[in-house]
């Protein structure tokens, strides 16, 4: 591949569509109108949707020096676009700025998925992170949001720094920033990968890089937390996958590489620590948002376990397991956060007796919680089921046991939320039953509910995989 060959523009059509939407949103904001937000969201959703369609319009697989399109990348991009759509459907701010920022972050993610090159990865990472710092800050900031944004910025900046330094080491060692190491792995490349891997773990929210996460999720808008807990986490997983594959023409369907040979040694430990920590911390939370934040840390641990099996390789189903887990998590966690956004609940206290005030929203939330807890017949159960199965197929029996025990811990707090909602008498702080989602948000709720009931279909993972690799 000639280094000087420019990437054909046609391959970038989806990204261009999103960029245009970004521009349109900004253009909307030139004049101050009350309908700015809605208009911008409409443009944004249009762009994201157009991008989604264009992904499938383009070639099934193409690989240039810097960027790829189609293939596995597309699956991730579809995921990111869905998460963005959910955010746009749920977010009801007035201005156009959040839309523009979100589209920026989405572009970063798209770039991340398509990147064939470490530097492209870095730019994708930055483009994803910077708008998020500002999104957390929010349109009408309060002290807590500002604090969260500052914390996020500095920890995220440190992570970027680590990534960049890792990149420089990689470049020093191999003479290229391409993901293909070209030659045997050396201590230098290992060091580089460890530094870059730390940045990925930071995005995933793995122990001990997770401390920013609960603060940020607690302070920011619930729909933003939903976006971050799904898309950003997925981006982190993707980053880690790319690092461990390290192959320019990588097609994980065909097998895995070994650029990060020691992933096997430490990833299970990090995974177990992460899920245990997340669950133990979640058990004692009084704020629902913070609780869900810690729960997302716990889920990150399970994701890492799935990632480890995938990297361990050889069983042919691991990537689909990972995707299914992410997919199920996208729906159930979005649903849970969306419930918080629409009902205006943030403290566990406020949930008391909510089931009596608003049975249907409460039932919806309970469904999401059961799904997060991994109780059949929900998609969350199926996701854990696949992960444990894959772990047992390999040599990860102890990690499988850890995942199982952790889902018990998890059920402990999910279920006590359900209990608070249904068993307790309504308290003075329980909001009334008003719960009126917009049409778009209602659609998302329905989607989440429907997707969470997938547990009856044991082959759902295979279906999803076929769908994503059309």
């Amino acid at each position, binding site marked *: 591949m000639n*280094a*000087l*060959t*420019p*990437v054909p523009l046609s391959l*970038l059509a989806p*990204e261009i569509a999103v*960029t245009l939407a*970004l521009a349109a949103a900004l253009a909307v904001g030139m004049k*101050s109108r009350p309908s700015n937000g809605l208009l911008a969201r409409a443009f944004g959703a249009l762009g994201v949707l157009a991008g989604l369609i264009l992904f499938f319009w383009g070639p099934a697989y193409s690989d240039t*020096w*810097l*960027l790829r399109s189609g293939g596995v990348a597309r699956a991730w991009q579809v995921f990111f676009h869905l998460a963005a759509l959910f955010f746009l459907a749920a977010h009801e701010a*007035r*201005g156009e*700025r959040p839309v*523009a*920022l979100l589209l*920026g972050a989405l*572009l*970063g993610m798209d*770039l991340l998925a398509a990147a064939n090159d470490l*530097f*492209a990865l870095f*730019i*994708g990472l*930055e*483009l994803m992170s*910077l*708008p998020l710092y*500002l999104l957390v*800050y929010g*349109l*009408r*900031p309060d002290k807590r949001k500002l604090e969260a944004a500052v914390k996020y910025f500095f920890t995220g900046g440190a992570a970027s720094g680590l990534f960049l330094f890792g990149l420089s080491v990689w470049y*020093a*060692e191999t*003479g290229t920033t391409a993901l293909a190491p070209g030659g045997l792995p*050396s*201590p*230098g490349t290992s*060091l580089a990968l460890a530094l870059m891997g730390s940045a990925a773990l930071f995005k995933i929210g793995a122990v001990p890089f997770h401390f920013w996460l609960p603060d940020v999720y607690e302070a920011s808008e619930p729909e933003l937390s939903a976006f971050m807990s799904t898309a950003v986490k997925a981006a982190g997983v993707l980053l880690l996958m790319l690092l461990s594959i390290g192959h320019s023409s990588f097609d994980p369907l065909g097998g895995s590489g070994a650029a990060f040979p020691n992933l096997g040694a430490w990833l299970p430990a990090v995974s177990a620590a992460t899920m245990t920590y997340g669950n133990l911390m979640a058990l004692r939370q009084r704020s629902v948002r913070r609780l869900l934040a810690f729960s997302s840390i716990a889920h990150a641990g399970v994701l890492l376990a799935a990632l480890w099996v995938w990297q361990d390789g050889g069983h042919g189903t691991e990537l689909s397991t990972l995707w299914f887990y992410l997919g199920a998590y996208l729906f159930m966690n979005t649903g849970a956060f969306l419930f918080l956004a629409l009902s205006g609940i943030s403290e566990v206290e406020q949930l008391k007796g909510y089931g009596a005030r608003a049975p249907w929203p409460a039932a919806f939330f309970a469904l999401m919680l059961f799904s997060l807890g991994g109780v059949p017949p929900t998609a969350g159960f199926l996701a854990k089921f696949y992960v444990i199965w894959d772990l047992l197929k390999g040599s990860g029996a102890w990690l499988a046991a850890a995942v199982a025990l952790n889902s018990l811990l998890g059920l402990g707090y999910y279920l006590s939320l359900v209990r608070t909602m249904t068993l307790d008498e309504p308290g003075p702080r329980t909001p009334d039953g008003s719960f009126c989602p917009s049409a778009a948000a209602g659609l998302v709720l329905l989607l989440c509910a429907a997707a969470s009931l997938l547990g009856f279909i044991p082959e759902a993972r295979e279906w999803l995989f076929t769908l994503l690799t059309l």
Partner: protein
Amino acid sequence: MTEAAFLLCGAGAVVFAALALFQRTLYGSALCLLGVLLQVAGAYFLAGARLLGLLQVLVYAGAVMVLLVIAVMSSPPRLARPFAGTPPAWLGWLALLLPFAELLAFLRLAGPADGAPWRWTPGLETQTASLLFGAYAPLTEAVGLLVLVASLSILREEP
């Protein structure tokens, strides 16, 4: 010889950085940072990346420093402890000792691959420019977007 000068510039940068760390005032730290940035720019010059050195001076010593100065000036003029209490300082130093020790161990045990000799490549910067607007164009664009997005932070929030 140039190589030695490069190293000297680098060492200067490290010295300035260390100085910056221990400055009690933000003002002092910012000045020291300027020193670091200039030293690094000098190193770029010496490495033959003159355009890059220039950019370093313009962007960093120019734009970023301006921002820093504005921020420093906006903060209330009071003399405060430079170091945070949590975690305790000794724990913080301990944590920093770890990567230092690792760095030394790494250099001693593994060391970087000792590749080709220092080599001047004429036309490198032209190549760089064509690359930036050729194959790297999407990335350049992305960085442009990045700057655009960053600029959104300057927007005033609505009243």
